[in-house]
């Protein structure tokens, strides 16, 4: 970027909202600081030791002025805070049609995994204008997925999933950083986010080679981990059939009903005794610690692919 960079690239509608909010804060802050600097310098000059300014104390500074001035600045700033909070909440509920990309942070690289099974290291190719829902996890320490151009950042804490979404509106290449200190190559753990026209993105996807989709890989994992032994027809143990389950309500043994979204599927794999389907014995063993993060994503995608038609994304 030629010249002196004062302002980061603005690559999404959300980012421009942040620009406006930051601008507003900047103006209010500058006005307040300006008032303090001006008053200080004005008094310092007018009432300096030798000057014969009028010091008769006529303009009595009452505390009423002080309280009102403080209350006014507080109200303005709290107004900006409410605006900030509103945008913040917006960041945490993605639209329904968001494409889901799994991102795993590992010491000193980001591994991204598209629904079609394509994998990328320290890079992310996304189509312009398409809402992208990131599901972030870490395999070792705390990292932080940070794209300055989109003004988004989310710490990835090992042992938990964090979600964040964005919709890039401008084609281009933008920085990707790791923002939480994670060791020797913390500074090298980043790369580029490439926002492409949908056509180019399609071509790029094909160019990634015919890896089968996430769901296809999930299917053979379903067999390899022995899930099919119980959950498919003719299984040895009485276990709920998974066809047509994804996205629909599932009655639980404690009488409550839960929607079988990917969180329910994931939790049931990791902690099956927590929410047992109604009418079944809690016999399923836990797979926590045995199924890695990437395989779990594939299993979830597979269960989703055999769900009812309208639930499939």
């Amino acid at each position, binding site marked *: 970027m030629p010249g002196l960079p004062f302002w980061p690239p603005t690559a999404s509608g959300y980012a421009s909202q942040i620009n406006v909010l*930051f601008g507003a*804060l900047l103006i209010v802050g500058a006005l307040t*600081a300006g008032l303090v600097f001006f008053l200080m310098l004005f008094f310092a000059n007018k009432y300096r030791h030798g000057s014969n300014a009028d010091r008769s104390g006529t303009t009595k500074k009452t505390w009423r002025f002080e309280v009102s001035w403080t209350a006014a600045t507080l109200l303005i700033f*709290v107004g900006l805070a409410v605006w900030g909070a509103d945008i*913040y909440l917006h*960041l945490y509920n993605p639209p329904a049609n968001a494409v889901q990309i799994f991102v795993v942070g590992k010491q000193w690289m980001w591994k991204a995994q598209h629904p079609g099974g394509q994998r990328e290291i320290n890079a992310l190719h996304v189509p312009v204008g398409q809402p992208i829902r990131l599901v972030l996890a870490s395999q070792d320490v705390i990292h*932080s997925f940070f794209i300055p151009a989109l003004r988004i950042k989310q710490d990835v804490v*090992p042992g938990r999933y964090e979600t964040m979404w964005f919709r890039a509106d401008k084609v281009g290449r933008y920085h990707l950083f790791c923002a939480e200190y994670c*060791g020797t190559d913390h500074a090298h753990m980043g790369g580029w986010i490439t926002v492409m026209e949908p056509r180019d993105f399609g071509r790029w996807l094909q160019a990634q080679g015919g890896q089968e989709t996430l769901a296809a890989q999930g299917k053979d994992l379903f067999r390899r981990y022995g899930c099919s032994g119980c959950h498919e027809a003719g299984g040895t143990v009485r276990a709920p059939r998974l066809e047509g389950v994804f996205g629909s309500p599932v009655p639980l043994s404690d009488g409550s009903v839960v929607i079988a979204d990917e969180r329910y599927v994931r939790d049931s794999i990791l902690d099956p005794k927590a929410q047992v389907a109604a009418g079944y014995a809690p016999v399923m063993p836990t797979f926590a610690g045995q199924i890695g993060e990437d395989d779990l994503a594939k299993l979830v995608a597979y269960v989703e692919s055999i769900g009812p038609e309208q639930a499939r994304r």
Partner: protein
Amino acid sequence: MNAPHQPSYLSATVGIRSWLLTTDHKRIALLYFAGITFFFFIGGIAATLIRLELITPGPTLGSPDFYNRLFTMHGIIMVWFFLIPSIPTTMGNFILPMMIGARDLAFPRLNLASWYLYMAGGLITLAALVLGGLDTGWTFYEPYSTFYATGYLILGVFGIFVSGFSSILTGLNFIVTVHKLRAPGMTWYRLPVFVWSTYATSLILVLATPVLAMTLLMLLAERVLHVGIFSPQLGGDPILFQHMFWFYSHPAVYIMILPSMGVISEVVPVFARKPLFGYTFVVWCSIAIAAIGFLVWGHHMFVAGQALYASLAFSFLSYLVAVPSAIKVFNWVATLHEGWIRFDAPMLYAFGFIGLFTIGGLTGLFLAALAVDVHVTDTYFVVAHFHYIMVGGAVMGFFAGLHYWWPKMTGRLYPDYWARFAAILAFFGFNLTFFPQFILGYLGMPRRYQSYPPEFQVWHVLSSAGASILAAGYALPLFYFAWSILRGPRAPANPWGATGLEWSTRSPPPPENFVETPTVVRAPYQYVQGEPRMQAGDV
């Protein structure tokens, strides 16, 4: 009033034992002063090396690991061995008992023990840093600091753990002293504001530091015994560590800034020859900062995976804690109205403090807005914010107090011209160093990066240039203060014509501070038409 040849606290007893085993709060203050200066310059060297490293986008001075150990050393030394002890243990120890008309602190031996704990902790951590340092940053985030960090983490953390008890005991000493040892007539509303803010700081020292002690203990237990309290690999929750760490560390930043606010509330009325505007407002704002400071730590964790509702609550509480600071700034500026303002060195540092602290405080409000914080947290915007408060605020306040009470502490005057030049030099060097970092922050330059994209280099070079000027601004006082001790002219009891009790005794003061305990008849800062109305029996 002062006997012809009565010895001062410096000449009353002689010899190394008289210093190392002293229980005189004034001598202990000077012992702390030696420790503080030593650690300030070690931290300063680390800071200069960091700025040199960041001149070029790629590695300049050494490997990334070297840089990680460098900023960790800068953070740990500056936070725990300079900023937190700086004003309370030096000026607080020396001036507070004199301001309330006491002969010494409530527990003098405990005061000496605190110094030994501080030095022991300091040397243990310094040993860890010299042997190879640790590369976790001063925040020791989990699970990196327990299972992935190389380096002398156990030794370094144990040093901080030991120095924490020095903070607790100093705070405890001050609280009991202010409650129990005030001179007759010294009611709470006649206390100078420096006593109030040191009292508020002591409340935080006593109530926050134990939580740090327990957090560091659990960190050590996890790393040594390999048990999973915080790290998810063994079932723990790393965000719990962040909660407990910041429960201490945010009040700790108020430990660092409150004493400086007290110093400024002392300096501004004296050099404006006018009573402090809104004394009760300023006093209760110090206590309010200490109290509300405990409710806001979550704003360090907006993107750390904290629950949404908790983030919302902490965001609004963070705006509340800004109100008392705003009131104090307003009162300092209002004190200047219709004053007789003199621009001695302490006053220049005070002006620098008010300006830079205002900018630091306001950028804090940027960070408290949730959506903006998502973008700028963990970037150089945060680095600039807390350096504006710590270096622009706390260190400027430390130098203001140093220049203000230097004649009282050493009985010598210093060259005013050089002191004013150092103040201005530090002000401009500071701004050139840290204002570009605000711009870097919003551009998205992350913290703790040794190599960065080339387009940020312009701002880093500007910042490094500013750092060299700032270093000069901080080194200059070393010279003229040394000259002042060796050949500076004798200081009178009240060189600035101030109204505090500490100015009503000789400088340097006798061992028991006052020939006979003064009685207080008037509130502080009583200047009528610019002339101070002194307490009974003042010099």
